[in-house]
């Protein structure tokens, strides 16, 4: 079944189109009845939209749209958009996270106003992310990056009477604005050197850079800075703890999973396609070895994230730092690319993508569990989590799965994806990266298990009351947990797809 022999080519962007249309549809529903409190319709529509977008992405992936089996990547709109396996794979990540978040928001938003706006912002951000994964030009990269970022700013500050949320929104926005300016300047420098924004053409024109290799290097550095922001990596990471802590928990889940993955999606494509390592390291005027840059960033990011997470008392903040740590792991995908890596390059990149997929499930689930705890009004610190398992065993079990999986303990998806990642890094000759990653993983167990310990083992200082059983949150959390577990036995298709499609980038 090759859908694109029967469908017009532009339909390859269907996942993004469906997401965008759903966002517009939500606005229309909100237009028809602006004062509605019928959360179910909105949440249902949003979920349906993201699920169908995900379904389309999965269908395309399975049928090989944009892959070599059906004639290679589909370039649209003057090469500004490219649909290939990588973009579809990431679209799958975004849509599944979006679906979980929207389902969970059904309960989280029950008492809030402006629900229609919330869902449509989420959907628009998801559209932007999907487009990021499809971008084949620095122009579309920037535009879609902003399309993903702008709704996110508003989403973080969604609780506009909550000082934490506003503060988080402000900080997220300020750093975001700064980094997008830096990013844009980086793009302009690259354009100055190469005279093109389309990624393959940039690569082809890199030879012109001989005179201006310094400018090119600066541009690449600035572009990397923009990605570092989006992926919450060092040195643009320090918004993340604030934003994730202050934002409504479903939004934190969305940002820390999908948004981060989107940053990686576009970073993977830009750096492998526009700045092929073999070209940029062999320029006449010098070399722009971004692989080394990312290796350093990866080590610093994962170490910093994990150590900072270990010192936190607030669970959400701990997760925020841990998500910085995970950005460090995913960066290995870029760091371990070598000039003559051959198939190993695709493998390590694919492994990083697969890790992001698994991470999408486990991290979203973890934040949604926090959303549930927020909903119950139990508090934020580890102590406040004491004894939750006795009252809500199913949710606590799910959270345990997430925590252990994030730590990389074997019976869950996180283990096998980390294994694949570290293994691929070693395969590329970066055994020290893998070693740092493994040590960090071991360290991370310390703070993840604190949550588990609090929930199951500690006694609450005062009896805790769980007033409600939020259905949507439960569905989302259990779904994420089942996904996290099933990704262990079902990892083969994931990693196979990821590595196949990643190999096409080189």
């Amino acid at each position, binding site marked *: 079944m090759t859908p694109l022999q029967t469908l017009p080519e532009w339909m390859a962007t269907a996942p993004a189109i469906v997401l965008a249309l759903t966002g517009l549809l939500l606005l229309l529903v909100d237009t*028809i009845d602006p004062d509605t409190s019928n959360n179910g319709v909105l949440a249902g529509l949003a979920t349906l939209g993201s699920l169908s977008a995900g379904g389309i992405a999965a269908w395309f992936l399975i049928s090989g749209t944009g892959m070599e089996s059906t004639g290679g990547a589909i370039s649209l709109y003057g090469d500004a958009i490219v649909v290939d396996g990588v973009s579809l794979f990431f679209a799958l990540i975004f849509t599944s996270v979006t679906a979980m978040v929207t389902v969970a928001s059904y309960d989280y938003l029950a008492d809030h106003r402006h629900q229609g706006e919330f869902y449509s912002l989420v959907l628009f951000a998801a559209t932007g992310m999907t487009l990021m994964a499809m971008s084949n030009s620095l122009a579309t990269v920037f535009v879609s990056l902003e399309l993903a970022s702008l709704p996110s700013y508003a989403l973080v500050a969604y609780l506009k009477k909550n000082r934490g949320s506003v503060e988080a929104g402000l900080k997220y926005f300020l750093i975001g604005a700064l980094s997008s300016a830096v990013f844009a300047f980086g793009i302009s420098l690259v354009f100055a050197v190469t005279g093109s924004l389309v990624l393959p053409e940039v690569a082809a024109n890199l030879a012109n850079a001989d005179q201006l290799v310094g400018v090119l290097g600066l541009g690449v550095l600035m572009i990397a800075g923009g990605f570092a922001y989006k992926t919450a990596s060092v040195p643009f990471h320090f918004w993340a703890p604030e934003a994730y802590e202050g934002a409504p928990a479903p939004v934190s889940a969305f940002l820390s999973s999908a948004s981060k993955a989107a940053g990686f999606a576009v970073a993977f494509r830009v750096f492998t396609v526009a700045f092929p390592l073999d070209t940029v390291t062999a320029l006449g005027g010098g070399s722009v070895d971004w692989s080394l840059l990312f290796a350093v960033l990866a080590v610093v990011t994962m170490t910093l994230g994990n150590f900072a997470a270990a010192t936190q008392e607030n669970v959400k903040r701990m997760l925020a730092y841990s998500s910085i740590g995970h950005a460090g792991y995913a960066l290995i995908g870029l760091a371990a690319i070598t000039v003559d890596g051959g198939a190993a390059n695709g493998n390590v990149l694919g492994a990083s993508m697969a890790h992001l997929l698994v991470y999408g499930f486990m991290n979203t689930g973890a934040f949604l569990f926090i959303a549930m705890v927020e909903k119950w009004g139990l508090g934020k610190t580890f102590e406040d989590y004491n004894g939750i398992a006795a009252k809500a065993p199913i949710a606590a079990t799910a959270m345990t799965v997430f925590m252990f999986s994030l730590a990389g303990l074997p019976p869950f998806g996180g283990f096998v994806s980390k294994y694949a990642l570290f293994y691929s890094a070693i395969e590329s000759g970066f055994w020290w990266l893998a070693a740092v990653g493994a040590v960090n993983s071991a360290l991370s167990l310390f703070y993840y298990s604190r949550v588990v310990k609090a929930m199951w083992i500690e006694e609450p200082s005062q009896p805790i009351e769980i007033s409600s059983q939020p259905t949507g949150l439960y569905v989302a959390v259990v779904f994420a947990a089942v996904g996290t577990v099933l990704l262990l036995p079902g990892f083969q298709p994931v990693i196979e797809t990821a590595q196949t499609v990643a190999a096409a980038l080189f």
Partner: protein
Amino acid sequence: MSEWIAIGAMGLVAVGIPVGMMLASALLRPSVPEQGKSATYESGEVPTGTARVQFNIQYYMVALLFVVFDIETVLIFPWTVIYRSALEQGASLGTILTPMLVFIGVLVIGLVWAWRNGAVKWVKSPQASRRKTERQDA
């Protein structure tokens, strides 16, 4: 480049004339400072409070809408410029028209949404709306 030099010259002149008039006036006019004269005008009353006050939020909402639509025009103009020549060069109507229709359509949805949510409704006094609902209930 000469046209921009000319425009720059126009800019100079356009600043120079007002400044020249100011200078001329400065030479001509008397100056008789007096306490009462310099009070700000509030219909003859003694001014109360400062003028730097918080303002109706609607001004901000309208400004936001303006930003959106003004930017839209920035993106529409290039399209209008090439529209006819593209058609004459054989581009099909669908490829040249549809994207802009979609673009405007998205913005129209946005406008309709903003409209329904009261972004362009000037009077949003809670008192007025309460009276309205009371009337409806009665």
